[in-house]
């Protein structure tokens, strides 16, 4: 089973990101679970969401305390003291940021890939909604699921021009990161 924790701020599509990832896993025949950690829901407030993907039914329903991967939708959240709490040894973090990944890796003391997802989304979608780009990059880095699964999940939620733009964003985001850099860790965790 793979456990992923997604950090963001209200209004950045954090929960939708979690649901999309789980839906994509479902499209590939996996069992999946996704849920938010609700605080007082306000635009801009920190929001956390959790995703579990497995090839067996998932029975536990507690919060993810030892994620294999983190996706951080807003780099201002990196100031939060516990943002990487519980990250498994060898775990990795994908951050939506214009900053340099190596710089962030040194700051967080773990493997980090940075992607300017909001900027990319602004260009392709017309809105700085980073979730689709981050998910696509995540799948490209881990090889966890094929891009087609994410696209299928997206077509369950979006239609017409919005869906087309999201497809393009998926391709562009995948091209913006190195393929399979985290693939070994993904397999190790899935065992």
């Amino acid at each position: 089973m793979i456990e992923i924790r997604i950090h963001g701020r209200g209004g950045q599509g954090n929960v939708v990101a979690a649901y999309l990832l789980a839906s994509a896993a479902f499209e590939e025949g996996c069992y999946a679970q996704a849920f938010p950690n609700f605080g007082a829901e306000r635009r801009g407030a920190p929001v956390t969401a959790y995703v579990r993907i497995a090839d067996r039914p998932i029975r536990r329903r507690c919060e993810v305390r030892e994620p294999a991967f983190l996706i951080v939708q807003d780099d201002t959240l990196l100031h939060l003291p516990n943002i990487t709490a519980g990250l498994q040894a060898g775990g990795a973090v994908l951050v939506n940021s214009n900053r340099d990944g190596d710089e962030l890796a040194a700051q967080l003391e773990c493997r980090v890939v940075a992607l300017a997802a909001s900027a990319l989304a602004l260009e392709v979608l017309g809105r700085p909604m980073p979730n689709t780009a981050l998910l696509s990059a995540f799948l490209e880095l881990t090889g966890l699921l094929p891009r087609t699964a994410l696209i299928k999940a997206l077509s369950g939620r979006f239609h017409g021009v919005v869906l087309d733009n999201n497809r393009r964003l998926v391709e562009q985001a995948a091209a913006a990161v190195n393929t399979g850099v985290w693939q070994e860790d993904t397999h190790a965790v899935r065992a």
Partner: protein
Amino acid sequence: MQYALEGSQALARTVALCRPQVIAAYPITPQTHIVENLSKLVADGALNCELVSVESEFSAASVVLGAVAAGARAYTASSSQGILLMSEVLFNIAGLRLPLVMTCANRAVSGPLSIWNDQQDSMAVRDAGWIQLYCANNQEAVDTTIQAYHIAEQTELPVMVCVDGFTLTHTLEVLDIPDQQQVDRFLPPFNFERRLDPSSPISIGTLVAPDYFTEARYDHHRAVNDAQQSIVAAAAAWEDVCGRRQNPLICVSDRQGARIGIMTLGSIAGTLAAARDHYNNAPATRLMALRSFRPFPAEAIRQACAGLTDLVVMERALSPGSGGIVGAEVRATLSEMNDAPRVHNFTVGLGGRDVPMDIYPRIHEGLRTGSGIPFGVLDLEPDKLPAAG
């Protein structure tokens, strides 16, 4: 057919499949997505029913009371404060023997204010005379909702389907949603014999003096007790239709040589099952998820606990000044057994506190120290308590 759905979304689709004729909608966290999804189905013409957007939960319950009395299959959902605001009406609906199904998206009760999951709300109305069924996961919530209409209309009692708020309602997972034909086969159209009808007028809700009240109340009590049979039958019948194993009164998962049992209600059952496999050095433990709390299935509970030396009742509410609610009832019923297990009673996860996997070794530790006799809050953090006076 299988879908990846949020719990609330699945419930909304399931309710729509049951062909309700009147739905009363009033929003309260964490039930909101259920009524929103139903509103969207109506707005798109996919659900043909009267959707009444009421001005309070008190009115929501009153509207569905009226709807059922006038012969329509009805639905509403609420949580926490809403359940309490409508509590007067809940007693009324049950006492008047009106068949109705309601989702309670379990949430803690103010004060202090909390929007997060525990079961204080449904526990607070356990004496209202409703059937109460607790769902351990979203698939069970889907299947139970459908069975609930069957049970309600057969027993002429209202059924509260309890689904942990956020933990289940806001979790997306892979679920099987039955198709319309399956549900139609299982649920015939609602034909309420005691409905208000000018062609054969009756009076509902009359004043009953002491000379008859006792019998009326006893008849109600007997009906809720006897509903155990309907609950079991509905589970078996639905299992035939959908092909999925259904749990009627209590779900027991045993282990070879288990002398310790843990009983709980609702979604923490899943975490406990995963934890039992994970902490495989712990003593063999029998896990039980209680589905029917009202009627209280005394005999089924005694059978499920046979052979145990210790039973831990883990619940999600408490009665201030007394302790556990489920624990007290279970302890009382087991005391009638020969060689009754020692009952340890804990509450956990109040106000939505996360119940992690390591609760499992902590339960076993609590067993050893006896901190659950008579009652303990297993996940209490004493350093957060105000200084003792």
